[in-house]
């Protein structure tokens, strides 16, 4: 279904004063093109009571923001997008590098990232059992011991690089092995089928 021609502007028009305005629409489109960098000089981040983070940029205030990695695999600590938490998820600004915000802010944002992302790193493979098209993993991760199941037929194991792999289980959880060469020979032998 083609989208209806709703004006691409925040809240829907609900009065005559909010008439459709081509100029404003073009202005917004232009704005979307800009990279708006947030630094310790122009943005103030603060913890909220409920465990989230708010931001004030001059006059602009967002009571809760979403913190998103643009390059979660290749550069998790750089280019962090700060977005509105609603469905539209509009970009408020970009943090190019955690060094460009204060230490407290960086810590705050890292907490938010830790809340948003959950990809345990496998540190030890205890056992892998394959049975009738599924493989049952028994591993230790940086988040604690864990058992999960993957589908052997599909593309459950993705290579991010020669040595770095990402394993998706049947529940769509993801587990990372940052460097397979660091595994013991015994562990490698168990994993061999999936490499």
């Amino acid at each position, binding site marked *: 279904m*083609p989208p209806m021609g709703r004006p691409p502007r925040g809240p829907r028009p609900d009065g005559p004063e909010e008439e459709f305005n081509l100029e404003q629409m073009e202005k917004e489109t232009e704005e979307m093109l800009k990279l708006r960098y947030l630094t310790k000089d122009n943005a103030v981040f603060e913890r909220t*009571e*409920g465990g989230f983070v708010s931001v004030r940029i001059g006059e602009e205030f967002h009571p809760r923001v979403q913190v998103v990695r643009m390059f979660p695999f290749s550069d998790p600590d750089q280019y962090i997008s700060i977005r509105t938490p609603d469905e539209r998820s509009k970009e408020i600004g970009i943090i190019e590098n955690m060094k460009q915000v204060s230490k407290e802010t960086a810590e705050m944002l890292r907490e938010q990232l830790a*809340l948003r992302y*959950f990809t345990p790193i496998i540190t030890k493979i205890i056992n892998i059992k394959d049975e009738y*098209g599924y493989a*049952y993993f028994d591993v230790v*991760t940086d988040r604690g011991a864990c058992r999960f199941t993957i589908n052997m037929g599909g593309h459950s194991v993705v290579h991010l690089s020669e040595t770095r792999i990402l394993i998706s289980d*049947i529940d769509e959880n993801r587990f990372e092995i940052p460097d397979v060469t660091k595994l013991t020979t015994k562990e490698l032998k168990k994993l061999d*089928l999936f490499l």
Partner: protein
Amino acid sequence: MILNFDLSKENQQLLALAPNERICYAVPYDITADGRFLSNSYAVVTDKRLVLLEEGTLRKQYLLSDCDKIDSEPQIDCGLLIVTVQGKEEIAARFSAKHLARFSYVARGCTLLLEGSTKLVSSEEYEKTCPNCHRALPGTRECPHCAKKSGGFVHEFLSMLAPYKKQLALIVFIMLLAAVITLLNPEIQKHLIDDVLTDKKGTLSQAFFFLGMIFALSLFMVIINISKAYLCSKLGSMISMDLRAKLYHKIQVLSLSFINDRRPGELMNRVVRDTTRVKQFMEDVFCNLFTVCVIFIFDVVYMLILDVKLALMAFLFIPISIFISNAFRHNIHRRFHRQWQKNDDVNSSLQDVISGMNVVKSYGKEETESKKFDELSDDFAAVQRRNETFWAIFYPLLSFTIGAGVYLITYFGGVSVLNGTKTTGELLQFINYTSMLYMYLDWLTNLPRRLMDLVNSLERINDVMNQEPRIVDDKDATDIDIRGAVEFKNATFGYKSYKPVLEKISLSVKPGEMIGLVGASGTGKSTMINLIMHLYELDDGELLIDGTDIKKIRLENYHSQIGVVLQETFLFSGTILNNIRFAKPDATYEEVIRAAKMANAHDFICRTPDGYNTYVGERGFNLSGGERQRIAIARAILNQPKLLILDEATASLDTESEYLIQKALERLTNGRTTFAIAHRLSTLKDADRLVVIDGHSIAEIGTHNELMEKQGIYYGLVTAQLEMQKVSNEETAAAQA
């Protein structure tokens, strides 16, 4: 999907239910806020509280009366349960992707509880792992492993074979015959050697007699094998054909919600792949099952009768042989799985580049792509070479090791022959039986895997077969002649019960009225139409047709009185005639022509070489979008429907065909209750009323003029379209200048 897990005694004590309090939902959560794995932790929702039980402690509880909102927010590979208390959002629990869907249902259930409803949310989704044995489920409700205990599988397998008793009896008879002949052969060889050949005891004619017998038996065996293979293939084909037809029929009967809940292709796989697996099992495994079992048992018995000591010696090697062959098979499986993966990489890379050739060429990347492909190809070749070498070296070694028992037998048997306690023929016979034992051993050890494949396939097939269609005719469903009054009363519906698409819709439509449905995409316009077509059942509220609950009208009777024209015009493979006649196969030529004329389709149909007999559909005559649309309209007219549904019927057509279709639609909607969705709002100018859907409910309702005066959402949409049109007109003008 389970939304109410059983709580242990300790957890129940922690929960300390008040006397009149009841548990509505209890679901596990598995990570802490800072991301450590948890066990034995539950979010429990009662009709009064939300309680978080974490590893044997009560971590936190909220009174539902204090909460403004309870929501489940998906994150990346995890999710958060967020409770809003006095306007402040707070993280109540965190869970991995394993429980994402579960918490979405629970959050929806909480919303209902907060609204004061007593309705409980339930989920038709299947669990991914068996809660009992923790194995992955092959896309079925029942676990094939755990269901087996109740004797379900054997029963299912036998009931599948039941209609073919005669063929089955014949096959079993032939299988037994094959076993007898196989076992007889060494016996005859013994006689040939001992009674005829040894010490020149017998005459030449006797030798020929035995040789002839061996030859006859071999010939007989060939005939038996051929007929066995033939009968088993035939039986397998018949059974799989049977299953396919039953499955196909069942899928047609099942409600759309069952089909939409599954990944595309999954049902197709069940019809095609799983039924083929059953056939293959019948051909490859079943056909030898009795033969091998009988041979194996009698082989063992014979060996024991002939020579207990030697037999036991031979048996001693069985576990060793099984162990070696299992290890070998495991290794081979791993190696070839890897080879298969590499092959897959090469194939998909090839497909990638060939289908994206113009991109590769226009960016001048031929060299790079070529190099990439070479690397993959080299990789594949290396793995293949390694595997072939491995096979070539180890297979003979393996056969040698597995057969080691035979050498031992030959040695000790040979000693007995030299001692005179055994004849040469007897030794040969014994050696033959021993080799037979090892030969079928391999087949038997492979049997469990083949059986499990069959069990899984049967389970997937029966999973569909045992589904009850959710929309069925009520016991007291009746036929009615529809006049065309449609009324929604507090109707709520969502494709997933945790995510309502329409909420508490109320709308009353008079017979003959034309209603235009307006709203941004994804707001539920098409959903409303799906409900009117009775493809889905409401979750809550009522839908009345002429004052009768839609559930009380016989489905077939109802569907024969509605006409549908959709944006994506679907023409079946067949002639134009058959396509127009789809809803009413007994329509006369005159009726068809009238309908085509009404739809402005008659003229272009006459221009095609084969007229109404022109073959259309996949690989058929190429019709334009407008022409297909007009055939669909003719199809809808032919039925003389009382209720008409137009879903984007005029989208993406050129101006001329749009005009023709508009005219055709005008004729069609005349005097019929019509629900129309249109992208171009101008096409809805004839609508008696416009219904604007926004935020899961009806936001505005009225005529075009009323809504324009109101200057609300509709006004915004119309002005936006006009502005956009102006811009594009200006652009065209500028371009032409």
